[in-house]
Every structure is written in structure tokens, then in C-alpha cells.
């Protein structure tokens, strides 16, 4: 299982993938809104989205697991 973590603290602005979606390495899966900026969070590896841990509007801390891939 691979984990995609938040690069910085912020609010989840956009969730761009759904469970079961295939993603490629480098694909933006979530966009955070932090310090009034939109911060894209990219998949580091290819895989299938197993679970999405947060929804739009949730606050996340740096290092929190946002999405897991299998």
C-alpha cells in the first residue's frame, strides 16, 4: 500500500480522484488551499485509489495521509 501525504498544512480544496480510480505517478490527486494558495498534491507512484481520507473542507496537517493506493 502506498500513501500520499499532505506536503503542508491546509484545507482540502478539491478532491480530484475517486476510490477505484487508476492514477499515474505525478498526477494531481488533491488540491489543498493553504496560506491562500492552491497547493496541488501529486501521486508519487502509479496505482489504484484504495481510500480517500479527507473530504473537501477538511483541515489537514503536514504529513497527514490523504489518499492510499494499492
Amino acid at each position: 500500500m502506498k500513501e500520499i501525504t499532505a506536503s503542508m498544512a491546509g484545507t482540502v480544496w478539491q478532491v480530484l480522484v475517486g476510490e477505484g480510480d487508476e492514477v499515474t505517478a505525478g498526477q494531481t490527486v488533491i488540491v489543498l488551499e493553504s496560506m491562500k494558495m492552491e497547493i496541488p498534491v501529486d501521486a508519487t507512484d502509479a496505482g489504484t485509489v484504495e481510500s480517500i481520507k479527507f473530504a473537501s473542507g477538511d483541515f489537514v496537517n503536514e504529513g497527514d495521509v490523504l489518499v492510499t493506493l494499492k
Partner: protein
Amino acid sequence: MKKILIANRGEIALRIIQTCKEMNIGTVAVYSEADKDLPFVKAADEAVHIGEPPVAKSYLKSEEILKAAIEHKVDGIHPGYGLLSENDDFAKRIEEAGITFIGPSPQTIEWMGDKIKARKTMQQAGVPIVPGTIEPIEDVEEGIKLAEQIGYPVMLKASSGGGGIGMVKCENRDDLSKHFVSSQQRAKNYFGSGRMFIEKCIENARHIEVQVMGDTHGNIVHLYERDCSVQRRNQKVVEESPSPFLTESLRSKITASAVKAAKAVNYVNAGTVEFVVSENGDYYFLEMNTRLQVEHPVTESITGLDLVRWQIQIAKGERLPLMQNEILSNGHAVEFRLYAEDPVTFFPSPGKIEELNWPEITNVRIDSGYESGNAVTPFYDPMIAKIIVSDSNREECIKTALKFFGSLEIKGLKTNVPLFQRLLEEEDFVKGDYTTDYLSKRSASKS
């Protein structure tokens, strides 16, 4: 008014405290765990810890803030900008608690916070609005139909958005159908309302806003314009007054429209009417900000007035200190927002400020929220300080700014100082020839 609570943080809290001190008004700061070492907490007469770092657990907790206000027996609450400043429910609860909210009435905040309602009001008042929809758009089909009539490109916006958040530019029908549902869903989650509207996208435009002030006796004046066209990702970076673009006749038309807009809602206290101005000088109402603006020092520099002092006097029920013909604009002022961010990608760069030495240069005002040793944390806006340069003319301001940024020492994190240094030497900026896509266009051409 003997004691004021400042429901904000950083530089703006400090700036409000300064005026309060001059007026012999006591101050109460509220702060989150992340901000406990910042200068504004020390500068206030009293300080109340209100919660954890994320804004939802501290600066947006209206209940906690109100509790602190009652416990510390304040007469007024100044909301600053951002955070709860445009939250009509907060303003209403303050009034119900018998405390003065230093700002417009809750009704006005709600009215202008609904962008669709604001557009309708301005159109009825005879203030030009951006061509677009007047009623909320029900679904994507209706959106496409209306966009064809308006003509692409269009801006798809959330009625409860604003300040550059919650809008998408759509070049064609495919873009619009792609973005409509997701934008609406996001607006619902983020702003609590999925009402959407479409405006024609005015290209090669400038963003020019007018400062207005109204009192409870029905007087409304303007304090001239600010040109805020230098932006990145719809967020302002440099603001100046006078606008290098406006002719004298266009300036008087825009400022008159701003006063008309403020009168249409019986505006009280400090507000800003934002316009988008096309390259041929047509101007359209964008939105009204019902609060003190980040860039208010630009206006203070050219008029020699203290807008926070005016806000407090108005909140006390006093008449405006000056009439329109007594408010003069002198010289030129430019404000630079110093951000903790990468100067090329514009991504935030939070961290500890190891060293911060402000050069001592005349005609430079520094409104800073931080000092050496403080940390810029990832929880809030990355602005470290505002640098406001004023002089008799624009050329002198540019010279002074170059000198300032050339000798500024800031270590420990990345800042946008290199961006300012390049910008101040670019021919188009020096000529005053720039539009809202200036920064994005130039970074695209350099990569």
C-alpha cells in the same frame, strides 16, 4: 469607546493597536497557539489565548472571541480583514451582546457578500456591472446557453466566493461543462452555498478599486483609487495610487460610481468598491469589500489620513472628519506585499525568520507582523509585511523601493523580494503599463 478587542492577527492587529494607543483606547488581542510569540500579542494591553493554530479552531471561533470580549469588558470589536471581518452573523452577535462592531451593519455585509445580489443592486443603482447573469444559474445547460449569449471567455463564479477564491476562467463550452459541477460542489462545501453565476471575462484588464467611507449621518465620501493590477493567482502583490492608467476624467467617473455604489446600500464605515477596467477605459463593478482593506496604507499615504481612526470615530457615531472637497490626494504611494514564498513558483515557504533587518530609509512605511526569531507558520496567509513607499511621484517611489529591497536582510525562508527587484526594473512596470495577467504572462515567458 475605552477598550477594543481586535479579532485578527499579525500586522493588521498591530496596526489597529497603534491607532488605539494614539487615541488612548485600551486593546485586547486574541491569539492562537501558533501566534503566541508574535509582536501583536505583546503590543496589546491584554491578550487572550483562544485556541489551536488552524483558523477554524481559533480566529474563526466567534463564540470564543465574543466570550473574551465580554469577559474583558470591551466596548468595540475591530475585525481587521479576512477571517470574521465579512461574517454578518459575527457582526450581528456582537451587536446583540451590546458591543460595537467596527464596520458596516450586518445587513450590508450580508448584502454585499452575496455577489449575485450585489450585482443586481448595482445595476439598479446605475453602476456599470460586468456583463453576465443576474439570476443564479440552475444547471450546466442553462450556464452554456447564457455563456453563448455573453460570449467566451467567461468567468464562472460562486455567489458566496470573492477575493479571488472560487472562480474559474472558461474559454469555451467544453471548459464550462467540465468545471460547472465541480465548481458548484466545491462552493457548496467551501462557502456553504452552490449558487453560481457567469461574467464575461474582461481581458487585458486592470483591477482598480476605490476607498469609500460613510458615517451614520448619511455622508459618504471616496478617498481615491488604488490600482491593484499586479497579482499572482488572483491575489494582489503590488498596489499603488494614483493609478498610472487612469486619466483625470476616468478617475472622476470611477470615484463617482463608487460613491453611488456605497449610497445604494447606505454604506457606513470603511469599504472598498472594486472595478475591473478594460483597456479602452470601460469599467465595471466587480464586488464591494465591506471592511478595511490590506492595502489601505496606500490611501493613508496619499491622503495623510488614518483610516482606522476614522473607522473608530464612525463607529462611535461621529460625523466624517472631512468632507469630499477637503480630502486631497498628494504625491504617489506604492505598497509591496512581502510574502514568505518562492519568488518563481509562488508556493508558500513557511519557516523561522532567522534574521530580519529593516533598512532605515525615509519615505518607507513598514507594517510588519513579524520580527527576527518569529516563525511564519503554514496556518495563515504567507504575508510577512507590507512595505509602503511614498514620494512626490512614481519614479521616486520606484527608486526608493529598489534601494529598500537592495538592502533588506531577511534570512531563514524564501521571500518574493527577488520578484520585486526584477519587477521594479522592468520597462513595462516602470512605465505603469501592466494588467492583471502581468505576473503570470512574464513567468510563463521565462520558463
